[in-house]
């Protein structure tokens, strides 16, 4: 195809479109790079989950593959001791305040965190850091949607989905450890103007927003 450029990821030569981000080029060619917050149509990418780091030959530091565009002849590696340490630490920090209750979680076996752990051989329970439980109330006030903020990884997919397909009631609030996905004035979903379109439950990579059973 015209305009395709060649790049090398983990020794495998692949074709990518100019301007494409490394992450999507890799995923389209069967090379897995952990990611939570990235989306193909996000401009600019939020690059907030810090899991999609790769190393590029000639670059002094690892870069986030969701923000880095491909250029012809780029030689990229997705695994190294340094990358595994950076990504592993990022993953561990996410897991310190993710309520890990897989057995009772509707997302069990389809959870993005489980996938990352499996692919990279990380442990779901943070091996070095203490757990920091937020103990926030579960909100099941909306029709068909259950929101458990204790499982949220703050990727922001639900907020985008809510604005594109739903009533646009979801947003981020507060700061730091207390940051949450919530509605105006922290109202329960059922009283927030949510129209129960369930778009958020389809994009949530973990069990934070799920269909009520």
């Amino acid at each position: 195809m015209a305009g395709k450029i060649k790049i090398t990821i983990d020794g495998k030569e692949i074709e990518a479109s100019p301007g494409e981000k490394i992450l999507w080029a890799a995923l389209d060619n069967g090379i897995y790079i952990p990611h939570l917050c990235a989306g193909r149509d996000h401009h600019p990418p939020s690059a907030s989950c810090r899991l999609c780091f790769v190393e590029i030959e000639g670059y002094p530091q690892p870069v986030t593959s969701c923000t880095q565009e491909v250029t012809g002849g780029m030689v990229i590696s997705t695994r190294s001791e340094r990358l595994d340490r950076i990504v592993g630490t990022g993953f561990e920090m996410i897991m310190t305040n993710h309520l890990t209750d897989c057995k009772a979680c509707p997302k069990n076996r389809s959870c993005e965190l489980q996938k990352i752990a499996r692919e990279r051989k990380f442990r779901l329970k943070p091996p070095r850091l203490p757990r920091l439980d937020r103990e926030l109330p579960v909100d099941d006030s909306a029709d068909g949607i259950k929101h458990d903020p204790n499982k949220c990884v703050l990727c922001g997919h639900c907020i985008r989905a809510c604005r594109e397909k739903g009533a646009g009631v979801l947003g981020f609030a507060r700061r730091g450890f207390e940051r949450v996905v919530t509605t105006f004035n922290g109202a329960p979903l059922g009283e927030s103007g949510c129209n129960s379109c369930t778009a958020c439950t389809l994009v949530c990579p973990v069990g934070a927003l799920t269909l009520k059973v």
Partner: protein
Amino acid sequence: MILTEEEKREAVEKSREILKRHDSSKGSLIPVLQEVQSVLGYVPPDAMQEVAGHFNIPSVDVYGVVTFYNQFRLTPPGKNQVKICMGTACHMRGAGIIMESWERVLGIKVGETTLDREFSLERVACVGCCTLAPVAVVNEAVHGKMTPTKVDGMLFSHRLANPKEKEEKPGE
């Protein structure tokens, strides 16, 4: 916090007045919120909705900004403002325990106001008298070497000195 109809009306009117003086570019959002707070003393939900409409953004985004910055309050300030120093020295001397004591005796969380509007509780950085750590500032008066017992005592003496509350109670 339950706001009266009058307060809600005031919030809407004042924010409309303020918004008239600002364009709807994103950069004006925080200056507008700061002006709302300086006029009303806090940023009530009705004002946030007015502001969101002016900037044509979801109201939850305004809520996100207001909750992100420490400078904004969501509840009206109380008649008595309690500020707990959370600076380094006070932190080391147990400011967290003092904060918890106030939260317990007042029945509110930091940043909130009691239902009777008597007290509001805030955290501040260093107030400049670290030798007295941990420090609480109540209406500009500095109280040093705070303990949970002292917190109980201060509230008790306040209630003794303000019998107005007691008059109200039988009527409840």
